[in-house]
């Protein structure tokens, strides 16, 4: 087991501030979706975080550790909820802009680059600790894939009149 630090410091503050800021924004922005749909859009981000972190950061691959130690802690659990406002605003802006299909890849690229930027900040604050040669750039294709799935989900729900 690797221990990176044992104090409540930069990484924990990063998570707490991101969570507060994100959820305050969700609460204060004008409502755009029915409550059930908003709940699904919020959980989309959390689910994606769990899905990839539990695929990429566990044995035998274990490309990165989250937070202070390689064990699963409460702060690790909370850190996944940072993704919730992110996915919510991804859908929010997508629904607001009503893009032409030809602009969808550009939209996904912009959000993926923003995701890489935020991940870079998280690495800087000690939320993620890369190992076994993993680099920030490897996250870009993951974000592109995940956000493409989100767009597919949005259209799936829209076609079934949930939106």
């Amino acid at each position, binding site marked *: 087991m690797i221990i990176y630090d044992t104090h409540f410091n930069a990484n924990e503050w990063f998570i707490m501030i991101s969570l507060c800021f994100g959820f305050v924004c969700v609460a204060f922005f004008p409502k755009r979706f*029915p*409550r*059930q*749909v908003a*709940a*699904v859009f919020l*959980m*989309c981000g*959390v*689910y994606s975080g*769990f*899905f990839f972190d*539990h*695929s990429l950061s*566990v*044995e*035998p*691959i274990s490309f990165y550790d989250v937070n202070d130690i*390689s*064990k*699963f802690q409460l702060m690790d*659990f909370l850190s*996944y909820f940072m993704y919730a406002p992110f996915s919510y605003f991804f859908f929010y802006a997508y629904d607001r802009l009503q893009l032409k299909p030809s602009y969808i890849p550009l939209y996904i690229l912009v959000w993926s680059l923003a995701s890489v930027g935020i991940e870079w900040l998280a690495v800087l604050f000690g939320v993620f600790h890369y190992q076994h040669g993993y680099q920030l750039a490897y996250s870009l294709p993951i974000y592109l894939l995940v956000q493409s799935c989100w767009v597919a*989900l949005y259209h799936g*729900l829209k076609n*079934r009149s*949930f939106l």
Partner: protein
Amino acid sequence: MSLAVCTFLAWITILILAMLPKTLTLLEMVFLFFVCTIFELSIFTIFHLNLHWIEVSTSPEKSFANLTIRLICVPVILVIISNVQFYPSNTLRWILLTTIVVLGVILQKIMQWLGIITTPHWNMWLTILMWCSYFAFARVMVWFIRYLKKTEDRVA
């Protein structure tokens, strides 16, 4: 071998969900799939990484087989269970719930037999307890997502 077996089992669960008469909407099922995956992965990770009650093989094939079960099979079973919970017949509901718990125990035995997991500090009753807690969680989440709709309708 282990990956093939687990992929097959995951596909069977998807098949059952596809053919099952649904009592939940698509939106409710998507929400449930997300939250059940999160809950189940968290519980499993605590037992695996923190308590070491369950050990997962570090071989790439077995590890991917474990992920297939954790990320697809178990959450889909919980979506199936949540649909079953709203069937009108009490007898049918309890028979199906008991069958799924038994199948959950068998699934764990298959995973042990295939060498995907080893359970140094574990017994069958803990598996049953774990599945019952998953069911309870799924039930609460169905209540929650339906409550959101109800409150919205009330406001409207």
